[in-house]
């Protein structure tokens, strides 16, 4: 495996709102240069919190309780706001979850696409506009001039997500955080967007942290994946290995819960209650251990 791009070590986070409930339980994962790492889990598993912790946009009711996020030898959690600002938008870029709310409704696409290039990459207004045009062409938008002159609400959801992807990769970052980038899209558009991300990622050699609740989506695009349950990594490994031989009962249950279009009558299997019970026992034991370590 080549050099590491991002290493998350024992990242813990708690919710200050409901009695310091743990949100992340010593999560560790590593992303190599040019690798796509998927984080899968049901809603509330803490997937997005990992993404937000890297980007320094943790909501005020959540606190990072421990761990390190090392990006190119620097711990992002230990940086000052200004130091982090220097890295964000240059070396790390975000593809937001919902393309319908990720744009400022009162500014044209060109203004929003060129912001990053101008503020973060030092392009002149004219250079940035030309670059934005080229980027839109790269994500297969046929009429880039028209799109650049449009307001966000004049574009379709798939189109907007393409623009967001173009904007993120256009900054030539070393790491792209894709926080459920296909969740808000319908299935046919989803497929195109996944292909697009993979193609751009390969062309630019970018590392990607891909957050999703959909194991099927992650399986298509990711080299490695981590399965998260209640903020704890229950399975980690290369996508091929995990899909072929999942070691954790929960992963198996997740795989069984994926629709099989080749066998429409097979039905979907809900996660068996004994699997949930075992997971919860495991997490309770982990929390006891964590408390003992804290007090002992």
């Amino acid at each position, binding site marked *: 495996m080549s050099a590491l791009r991002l290493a998350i070590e024992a990242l813990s986070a708690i919710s200050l709102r409901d009695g310091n409930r743990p949100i992340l339980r010593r999560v560790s994962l590593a992303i190599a240069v040019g690798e796509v790492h998927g984080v899968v889990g049901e809603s509330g598993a803490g997937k997005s919190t990992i993404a937000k912790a890297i*980007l*320094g*946009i943790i909501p005020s009711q959540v606190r990072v309780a421990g761990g390190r996020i090392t990006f190119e030898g620097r711990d992002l959690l230990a940086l000052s706001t200004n130091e*982090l*600002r*220097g*890295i*964000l*938008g*240059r070396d790390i*870029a*975000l593809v*937001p*979850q*919902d393309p319908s*709310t*990720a*744009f*400022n*409704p*009162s*500014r044209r696409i060109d*203004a929003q696409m060129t*912001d*990053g290039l101008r*503020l*973060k990459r030092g392009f002149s207004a004219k250079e940035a506009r030309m670059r934005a045009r080229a980027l839109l062409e*790269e994500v*297969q*938008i*046929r*009429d880039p001039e*028209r799109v650049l*002159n*449009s*307001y966000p*609400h*004049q*574009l*379709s959801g*798939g*189109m907007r997500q393409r623009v967001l992807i173009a904007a993120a990769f256009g900054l030539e970052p070393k790491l792209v*955080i894709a926080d459920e980038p296909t969740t808000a899209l319908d299935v*046919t558009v989803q*497929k*195109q967007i996944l*292909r*697009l991300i*993979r*193609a*751009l990622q*390969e*062309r630019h050699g970018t590392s990607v942290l891909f957050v999703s609740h959909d194991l099927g989506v992650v399986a298509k695009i990711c080299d490695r994946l981590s399965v998260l349950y209640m903020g704890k990594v229950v399975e980690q490994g290369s996508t091929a290995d995990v899909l072929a031989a999942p070691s954790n009962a929960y992963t198996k249950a997740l795989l069984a819960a994926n629709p099989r279009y080749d066998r429409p009558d097979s039905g979907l299997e809900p996660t068996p209650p004994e699997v949930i019970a075992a997971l919860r026992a495991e997490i309770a034991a982990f929390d006891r251990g964590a408390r003992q370590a804290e007090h002992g």
Partner: protein
Amino acid sequence: MIPSETLLDRAAVELQPDTELRPPSMASRLMRDRKVVCAGGFILLLIVLALGAPWIAPKDPLAQNLLLATVPPAGLPGSEPGYLLGTDGLGRDVLSRVIYGTRVSLTVAFVAAGLACLIGSLLGLAAGFLGSAIDALISRLVDVWMAFPPVLLSILLVAILGTGLHSVITAIVVIDWTRFCRVVRTETMGQAQMDYVVAARAMGFSRSAILFREIFPNVVPVLIALLTLEMGIAVVVEAILSFVGLSVSSDTPTWGGMIAEGRQIVHEAWWVLAAPLAALFATVVAFNQVGDGLARSLDPVLRR
């Protein structure tokens, strides 16, 4: 792995073109809005009247002629040629006085509302964006401020500062900045929670870039609507202060002053009251309509 070129080609084939949409320019959108055109035209007319009053007004607004007192408007029995809207109790030309009255009204509308808007929005942006201690401080100040009865406060202020245009403007600004502060603060806080603001933070943009590129443009439509509303309010407040004799000195014609004079002789000469009242009414309606139209056309989602 399939080569990325092939993947991109395939993606291209799948892409559906969007429907053709070219946003019309803001000016052309406004010109199509009949309400805005009428109301805006009326305000333009007022501005021309205010600036050109000495040339446009048919008579000297202060020249008295007791032999021609309470002459009715043209077309009514007993009217005199040259006095289109009649004369008041001192024989002064009502039309000329209404025309000269636009000067004070418009000055107050633009200067007082503009200053109140500037001060209120700056404090509102600071409170809504910086939050915590600054927000608490500004918000408590607004709460306390708004607890004073506005008319009383303005009369008190003018009494302390002395009469005159400066005092009227100061009084309106001092009282009405809170309106802007409240609305802008709430709007700013709402915007700061939006996904695109969070996305801008994740891009590592500076606070000022986020405030002026992401948040402020979305506050502007509300601000414009509020500003024009405030212009209407300022015109009315000035008229009230003139009515009670606390505005500019009585040798400057004002609509409020004319209403006060007209009220005393309303049974003999109703037009002395009706003319400035109609001007006041139309002006307030025009400001509100223009504000409404501007807010609509500035909001990219509402327009179309």
